[in-house]
């Protein structure tokens, strides 16, 4: 597998999408808007779902809304979960326990992978080897080497790889990036703070049964794989990678170094706060600081003992610039698209005309301008492409997951590069994985561009 050694992104993209013009960042999202219904009466893309847990079912529900996608099979090692999911997918959905069997036997064209993190690369590589396109949930893989293995397999198969960083498809985030950050309304951004805090043990009900042959010695370790470092990167890969990907994307740059601290500080095994089977070894309390080019510092925290957030949900990202502050909070309204964002101008900064017309609220004496794509269209988006997602209220009817599914089907049909491809996925995985490394080693870890070379 050394044929790609040293291959840069440009060459990589060429090899993946030889038959198509490479699309710029965001262009794929605009295309996604045009995706439904099925173009030209083509047969829907036959897709298999591998992994029928919570996230698998979220992706399924959204894939079912895309007329161009037909979920023909589902796969999970937990029978009950698999059967329920198959039922949701519709009558005649094939059911599999082993993903290899589904890849081999059934004429699917693509797979959606939503299995525990440690299995992402194994399943994705098998899918590429079987000639399938791959949509893989974030975080892309358990290690950067595994990300690279996935990319190599993708190139060899010449198929699509899309990673599920869904905030890149969020109309309000796209709006905020284009209309506030890129247009300089915030001024120079030197600081970003983000959090995803919960108050609870972060546990799920474990399934019944024996799953040792799949690498889970106990049902506890399968049901709560996020709590065990042999399967997961804990809070950083499962929650943080969403927001860190969004921050890098919105800033238009990737981190250069990270340091941080974390620990199992409250939900300790063998305490009376968790059941006896809980033998977690990933932190329940992480605080990390990233350095970005241009002196930007990003601090991120995720804890599990306090869910308070003045902005109304468990999570938010706060971009601080010399002219203003942008707060994004994608969980304010649950997982639908009515998420909230607010713009605060610094003292003395002149308001633009559209700001005077925008909906505003008072937050302890500070005027907050609502980030609402249907109202705060920035300077009316005069120079924006008409296809931009954020101008039509109709797009609020689609969840981010549906938009990413729509782009996936177009990418598969045209063998083109999705907005969140494997290279982007690998860099966002690195954000989370290197933070864990920094916390474990109690040191400052640097991001070397060379580490992404294939």
């Amino acid at each position, binding site marked *: 597998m050394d044929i790609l050694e040293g291959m840069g992104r440009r060459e990589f993209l060429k090899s993946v999408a030889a038959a198509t013009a490479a699309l710029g960042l965001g262009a794929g999202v605009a295309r996604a808007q045009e995706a439904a219904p099925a173009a030209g009466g083509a047969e829907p893309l036959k897709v298999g779902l591998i992994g029928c847990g919570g996230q698998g079912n979220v992706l399924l*529900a959204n894939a079912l809304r895309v007329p161009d996608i037909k979920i023909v099979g589902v796969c999970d090692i937990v029978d009950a979960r698999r059967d329920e999911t198959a039922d949701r997918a519709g009558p005649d959905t094939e059911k599999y326990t082993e993903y290899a069997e589904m890849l081999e036997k059934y004429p699917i064209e693509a797979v959606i992978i939503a299995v525990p993190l440690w299995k992402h690369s194994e399943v994705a590589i098998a899918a590429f080897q079987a000639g399938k396109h791959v949509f893989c949930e974030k975080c892309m893989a358990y290690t950067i080497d595994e990300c690279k293995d996935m990319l190599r397999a993708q190139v060899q198969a010449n198929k699509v790889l899309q990673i599920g960083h869904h905030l890149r498809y969020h109309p309000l985030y796209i709006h905020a990036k284009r209309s506030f950050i890129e247009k300089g309304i915030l001024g120079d951004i030197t600081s970003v703070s983000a959090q995803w805090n919960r108050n609870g043990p972060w546990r799920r009900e474990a399934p019944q049964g024996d799953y040792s042959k799949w690498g889970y010695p106990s049902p506890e370790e399968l049901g709560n794989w996020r709590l065990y470092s042999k399967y997961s990167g804990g809070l950083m890969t499962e929650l943080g990678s969403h927001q860190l990907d969004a921050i890098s994307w919105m800033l238009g740059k990737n981190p250069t170094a990270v340091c941080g601290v974390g620990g199992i500080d409250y939900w300790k095994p063998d305490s009376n706060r968790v059941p006896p089977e809980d033998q977690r070894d990933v932190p329940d309390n992480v605080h990390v600081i990233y350095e970005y080019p241009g002196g930007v510092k990003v601090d991120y925290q995720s804890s599990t003992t306090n869910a308070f957030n003045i902005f109304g949900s468990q999570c938010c990202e706060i971009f601080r610039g010399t002219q203003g502050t942008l707060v994004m909070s994608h969980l304010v309204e*649950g997982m639908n698209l009515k998420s909230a964002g607010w713009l605060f101008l610094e003292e003395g900064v002149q308001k633009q005309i559209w700001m005077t017309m925008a909906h505003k609220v008072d937050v302890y004496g500070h005027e907050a301008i609502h980030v609402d794509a249907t109202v705060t269209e920035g300077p009316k988006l005069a120079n924006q492409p008409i296809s931009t997602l954020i101008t039509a209220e109709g797009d609020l009817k689609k969840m981010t997951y549906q938009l990413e599914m729509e782009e996936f089907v177009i990418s598969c049909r045209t063998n083109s590069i999705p907005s969140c491809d494997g290279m982007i996925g690998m860099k966002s995985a690195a954000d989370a994985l290197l933070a864990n490394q920094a916390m474990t080693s109690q040191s400052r870890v640097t991001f070397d561009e060379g580490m992404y070379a294939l």
Partner: protein
Amino acid sequence: MQSVVPFPSMNSDLHVVDPKRFRMYLRKPTMGSYFELIVDGDRPAAELRVLMDEAWELVQHLVDRLSAHVPASDVCFINEHAFARPVLVDPDLFGLLQQAAAVCEFTGGAFDVTIGPLVKLWGFFAREGRVPSDAEIEEAMGSVGMGHVELNPAARTVRFHRPGMEINLGAIGKGFVIDKVVAMLRRSGVTCALVNAGGSSIFALGAPPDGSDGWRVGLRPGGTAMERLGVVELRDQAFGTSGDHEQHFVTGGVRYGHILDPRTGRPVCHRMTACSLGDSATRTDALSTALAVMGPEEARRFCVQHGESAVVIDESGEGAPVVEAIRCTIRPVAGPPQTMGLSPLSLDASSRDGKQTRGRHH
């Protein structure tokens, strides 16, 4: 009319009733009002906390899928696409639509989830009431009626046969959410809990551990602090109530309540509160609305004829409300409320939060 559940202290979320017994309490704003849950059990507090978290996650998940106020919900998706093509529906939602169709048929159309166009026409969707013209009502009525909805169980699809149709689950959705939470609690081994959505839909799982026969739900006139008319006791039983004491608007001296009659396209005129008791909160939620649409006389006849358990409270007269219990018992208000040794508070369980329409589900 307001029903009141005598309730233990709810100032914090964890009570040590005795060293081996914990009680967890949760109250969150949702569905245009609030969701409330008490779970009581002899299990570790951490386990109860996980249960409460899971219950709340389930509620949020269901609201995101069922609410006509959430643009990306399944219901909005159906409303947008089901005239153009059959829409594959989640098994749970399909089951709910089948139940809605069954209650519609059972009540001769007094309950109908396809009143979405009317809810919007009368301004109840946005809570900005207006009186439409007869022509507007007639036009909207062309897009109302469960008979124009095709439910295909084999393909599990829903299809509208008229353009402009809109499903609104406001009068059945809360009950459905409650039933799903109760099922989840039962699966987890919970035998003692009270689940309450907005005071208008309640399920009592088991009985309070103080030896009572059941959870007591008090009845008292519409949203006032007047004396309770009586108490019904619930054990493994659902309770739905419907009335329009608070959600209404007045134009030209005429009062328009928010309960719409799907058969006429107009708000009902009678002042009453209807309560339905049964095994399923989904059904009692829907039935209580149907009874409120029927009016006191028809509601009484209907319940007697079909053997339904209900409380019909006629508030149309000048004097005191006329209360009639059908196949259930209203107990006098006597003795102290159930306190389990804790300070008593009243659970604000009320029909005033509305059945046919909701505010924004934020």
